[in-house]
């Protein structure tokens, strides 16, 4: 199957998993991390995600993605929450211009943990799920075909724009525009590319509409079918049930921890 968007074809059980299971994982794990009052819970889920990434044969890419996201977001949130949170009472360090508070650090760690769970599950879903399969699964679950098209078209926008950009770049190089060299030269070459890329993308949108209609996209009174087929196996059903139970258990224990104890 050809590669589109972020999907990296791999022969792994995660790749073969029904796309809806991965959608359930995003929401069940993400919401559990969001509701649970202790940040260590979120990081425990992130460790599980690393194991899942290993099974999916994507550990290196997943690690790079998580590190790439964690470093800047941690610096930013530690600065905002750690130094300037109004809830700061227990001072950990005094920098003179600002003081690092424990309460702010905990808030920052909570936010980072929750974001990592949401982004990590979403990343694993997009890299292990063929987009055609994802949309077929969503349509089978009752989603409108038009919304399905919107998702697929959005996921395919990047490769299309890249293709168009390289065509325009080649045309400009052929007419003597310098596109290689230092940062400044490349930046100068990039600016004139933007206009044609944006304008042609807008024209494309109209042409796309015409194509879709001439191929019967908006035809009424027919239940559309899909070429890509997705089947839910017993193990998919089991994982889905476990995810739901996990969410219910963590939501329940969150309520107890927050309001009872």
């Amino acid at each position, binding site marked *: 199957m050809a590669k589109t968007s972020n999907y990296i074809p791999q022969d792994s059980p995660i790749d073969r998993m029904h796309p809806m299971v991965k959608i359930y994982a995003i929401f069940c794990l993400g919401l559990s991390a969001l509701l649970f009052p202790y940040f260590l819970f979120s990081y425990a889920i992130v460790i599980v995600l690393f194991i899942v990434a290993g099974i999916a044969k994507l550990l290196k890419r997943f690690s790079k993605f998580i590190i790439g996201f964690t470093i800047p977001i941690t610096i930013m949130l530690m600065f905002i929450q750690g130094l300037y949170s109004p809830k700061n009472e227990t001072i950990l360090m005094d920098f003179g211009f600002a003081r690092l508070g424990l309460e702010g650090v905990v808030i920052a760690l909570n936010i980072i943990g929750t974001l990592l769970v949401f982004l990590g599950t979403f990343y694993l879903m997009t890299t292990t799920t063929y987009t055609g399969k994802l949309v077929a699964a969503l349509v089978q679950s009752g989603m409108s075909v038009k919304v399905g098209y919107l998702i697929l078209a959005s996921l395919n926008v990047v490769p299309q724009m890249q293709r168009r950009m390289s065509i325009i770049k080649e045309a400009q190089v052929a007419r003597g525009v310098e596109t290689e060299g230092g940062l400044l030269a490349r930046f100068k070459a990039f600016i004139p590319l933007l206009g044609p890329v944006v304008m042609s993308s807008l024209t494309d949108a109209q042409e796309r509409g015409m*194509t879709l209609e001439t191929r019967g996209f908006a*035809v009424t009174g027919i239940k559309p079918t899909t070429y890509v087929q997705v089947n839910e196996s017993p193990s998919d059903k089991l994982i889905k049930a476990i995810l739901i139970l996990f969410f219910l258990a963590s939501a329940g224990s969150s309520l107890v921890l927050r309001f009872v104890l």
Partner: protein
Amino acid sequence: MEETVLEIKNLSFKYQDSKKRVFEGLDFSVKKGEFICIIGPNGSGKSTLCNSLVGLIPYYFTGKWGGNVIVNGINTKDSSIAELSRQIGFVFQNPFNQLSYTAGSVAEELAFGLGNMGVPRSEMLKKVDKVAKLMRIDHIIGKNPLELSGGQVQRVAFGSTFIMEPQILVLDECTTQLDPLGSEEIFDIVKELNKSGVTVVMVDHDMERVARCADRILVIAYGKQIAIDTPEKIFSNLDMASFDVDIPDFVTISKILKERGYYKGEITIDEASAVNAVKEVLA
């Protein structure tokens, strides 16, 4: 009496930002199973006419529209383009415009229209397989359409229209990306479809092919319908050079022989009849 599948009644169109009409007073009808070729100089409105036949005008291109286009008894004004697509298939001039841009493989691209029409998957698979072999794209069936060459995309574009099995096929200069051999292959398929009863309306600049394939030729130039008739009558009666249209060599041969008094037969429009005419002169 043969069934009329396309009726164009006093059709005129002017684009919104244009000062003059692309064409006016187009009036002709097409019978079931006919092969009609549209010829004329650049800017004469051939593509605009094609867009009108499939309903893209007036729905997508705004402007001043007059007259009627009736497809299998349905006035295009009263139907959506999608509904019309059940009757009429359109192959765009630019094959990249034919792609859905949602398919991850050629197979999915071919099946896109069938899915919209609710064709069951088992039937879809058979049709995709058949069309992929017919269009000689079976070796790239798993490839992403965005990774293909222009010629390959053109074949996919054709396939994605043929697979819908339309009763009427509109082809707008649709072999521009193909080499001569590939182009001939596609036209052989179009001819086969025409023989099986599919009505074909085609815009093409290859006059030898037009003369060979068409049952009738529609000539439009300077915004007017100049003539619609058989290739023999069109090429023998009209001064095609005045409409910036090339005359096939086979026609020129018999015309010159006729003008010089060596040949008294009909104007020749294909290789075989031109050879016979020359043989007659030499005998």
